[in-house]
């Protein structure tokens, strides 16, 4: 199995690792059974809807850590609407691809973004926008388990 240089770069020097004390939203997806857990923190400007800061912590393989890192980089400084448009495929492509067996790791990145935004809306008491995934994590794993 071969990882791209970009995956190795993001695994070795992950961007945005950490926690945000007064986060606007916190989301965690995945479970130990499937081997990946991704936790994401966001600081969101209520007026502009801009994700001003984002941090993550991930339990998982090199691909899981790299996709977490890339996903945070892709949404930092972007609006919520823009963040919601980030897809699994876009994260994987930004990393110059992932080995087929690792594609579920990129699912986790998208799910983490959505879970964190869900938490933000819940905390605000605002109705979440359409297109927000309702997934408590590891949707990808469940799918593969069923195969």
């Amino acid at each position: 199995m071969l990882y791209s240089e970009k995956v190795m770069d993001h695994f070795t020097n992950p961007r945005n690792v950490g926690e945000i004390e007064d986060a606007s939203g916190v989301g965690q997806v995945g479970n130990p059974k499937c081997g990946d857990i991704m936790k994401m923190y966001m600081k969101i400007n209520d007026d502009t809807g801009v994700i001003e800061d984002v941090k993550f912590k991930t339990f998982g393989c090199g691909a899981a850590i790299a996709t977490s890192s890339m996903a945070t980089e892709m949404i930092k400084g972007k609006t919520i609407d823009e963040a919601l448009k980030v897809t699994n495929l876009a994260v994987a492509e930004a990393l110059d691809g992932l080995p087929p067996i690792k594609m579920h790791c990129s699912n986790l990145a998208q799910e983490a973004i959505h879970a964190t935004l869900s938490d933000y809306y819940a905390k605000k008491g605002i109705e979440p926008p359409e297109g927000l995934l309702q997934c408590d994590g590891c949707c990808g794993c469940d799918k593969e388990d069923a195969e």
Partner: protein
Amino acid sequence: MDKRIYVDHSATTPVLPQVLEKMLPYFTENFGNASSIYSEGRDAKRAIEAAREKVAKAIGADASEIFFTGCGTEADNWAVRGTAYANRAKGNHIITSSVEHHAVLHTCQSLEKEGFEVTYLPVDEFGRVSPDDVKAAITDKTILITIMFANNEIGTIMPIEKIAKVAEDAGVPFHTDAVQAIGLVPIDVSKVNISMLSMSAHKFGGPKGIGALYVKKGTKLNNFMNGGAQERNKRAGTENTPAIVGMGEAIEIATADIEGKAKKLSALRDAYIEKVLSKIPYSHLNGHPTERLASNANISFEFIEGEGMLLSLDMKGIAASSGSACTSGSLDPSHVLLAIGLKHEEAHGSLRVTFGEENTMEDVDYIVDNLAVIVERLRSMSPLYEEFVKNAK
């Protein structure tokens, strides 16, 4: 990083230079087909029979009881399937363990689809099968007991003599996958009642693509490969003469001084285990504390996942392996680690280091020093560790 430290000898070993040297002429000048009647063929035949003697001698067998195969996996497949088919009229029950190599496990599972019944015995926390459990599982339909000699992941050595005795008393054929044990544990089939035993050359300094099955005289076994009359009509296919020669050389070297080798390797293993457990918190040893292969140390590191460790170690020039799902090409972690009662996250965080004779105490220190930094870095990124620290406060 130029220096490489290879500590994955249970995965494979380098071919010893003296083994390679003996093999090389059989690729070129002595290329003959061992079935041919002319002198090139006779040369090959002689070399194969000399290698067979060496393999037999290494385990206390007679040369007529050794059959070369394409790999250890083929030896396992042949032993299990061949015994099942040969004894179908007698019964359909097979006893094995839940920690076998997939070569045995998946063969058993495929036989279940053909109407065979398989008992997968549980193991204790150290990965050992209880001979009493084997005894209790035997029915009048039992036609095969297959329990590995030593586990490939956690290095636990099974109570083979006792299990062999149970099988002997019940008159049931007993196969053991000894792929990991050859060269690390003394094996003498003239003293222990083993009906069949699988070996693989690349685990002990020989080439890949060659294995052997010991079949005790009088054991009923159907053929697995059909074709020509090679291996006395038991295993068809033109003999891989260079590889067979290599296996013979390698097993002779590997079994010449098992005690001395085990002493050296276990000193490295024990130093590594002691240093890791004392330097890195929330780490624990998997497998038996003493009844384990001299080469094997399998340690779980809580809160982190194995593949990240392997990639980070590789960047420091260290080659090791893990029971994590991410390295196995599936989503499930090692069946062995789950069978000894580990939680999924503990199994994902396992690291297997298997030493070889070229490793040194300096290697041990280098690995432990780097590992401590790597584990700390991965933990600093882990939400499980974050949660643990918060709850501990």
